[in-house]
């Protein structure tokens, strides 16, 4: 189930600012309370897919006392895509919630 939402999760992880692959995985784990414990490598196909779609941009950077890293940033198109996916998810989760015992009817 997570696989279908991985692109949106990666976009959301980059909302706070540019980050490299390892930091993105760490953000996903910590923000989900370790619920999203997916194989770390699966984030890279998603990053490349999102970059091809124009939702992310990336550059190589070398910190003063560290190794060279490819850092990804959200583009304007990516921010718009994230907002759209958030909206769609909100509607979808409300609808599922009303079926699976949330007690609310949908649409509200």
């Amino acid at each position, binding site marked *: 189930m997570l696989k279908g939402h991985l692109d949106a999760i990666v976009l959301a992880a980059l909302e706070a600012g540019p980050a490299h692959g390892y930091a993105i995985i760490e953000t996903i784990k910590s923000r989900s309370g370790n619920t999203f414990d997916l194989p*770390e490598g699966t984030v890279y196909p998603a990053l490349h897919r999102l970059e091809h779609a124009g939702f992310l941009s990336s550059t190589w950077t070398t910190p003063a006392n560290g190794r060279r890293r490819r850092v990804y940033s959200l583009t304007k198109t990516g921010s718009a895509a994230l907002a759209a996916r958030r909206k769609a998810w909100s509607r979808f989760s409300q609808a599922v919630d009303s079926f699976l015992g949330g007690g609310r009817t949908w649409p509200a």
Partner: protein
Amino acid sequence: MAGVIEDYVAALRRQLDFDPTLAQRLTSEVEDHLRDAAESDPAWPSSEAERRAVQRFGLSRQIAAQFAADAIDRQVRRTWLTLLATVIVTFIAMRLRVIWLDDGAVSALAPLIDRCAFIVVIAVGVIGWFSFRRSFLALALCLAGLAASIGAGFVRADLFAQGAPLPVLLTAAGEMVLIGLLSFRIVGLGRRLKRTAVLRGVAR
């Protein structure tokens, strides 16, 4: 002796051999990632820390298969666009030849092959686009049909013997360039489809 991370990165590079640029870029990124992960392991420095980092990263074949599958969609789109461009240029070239050149007396079969092959290409192309977009066979049939139509068109108009005007020669050159590009794209797509099937099969 190479470490666990070096072995993993080398295996990933081999599995991404269908796209050398991607392989180069990704293996650098993955190596950085694995080193960060290993260094944050309580057992660092040790091969056990590297082994755990690699284990958390996932099977290299699964990652390579995902990249191959993503790349296929882009490659399919490019191939069909090239086919469309070839069909349009071939159609324009056919019309120009009819306007400016006489049918040569080389072969009575040539006009028939020219028309029929082109119609077959249009039919297979339309059906393929709507129903079998990833079909290597549909694209290969279109390529064969276009090659037959273009070849027959050249014979039909006795193109090189008649001293054709510049627009006719230019469109003929365009046809040849596009048919070459289309062949290149279709062969590349065939290889990619085969490679992806192998990676997916083994990764399962």
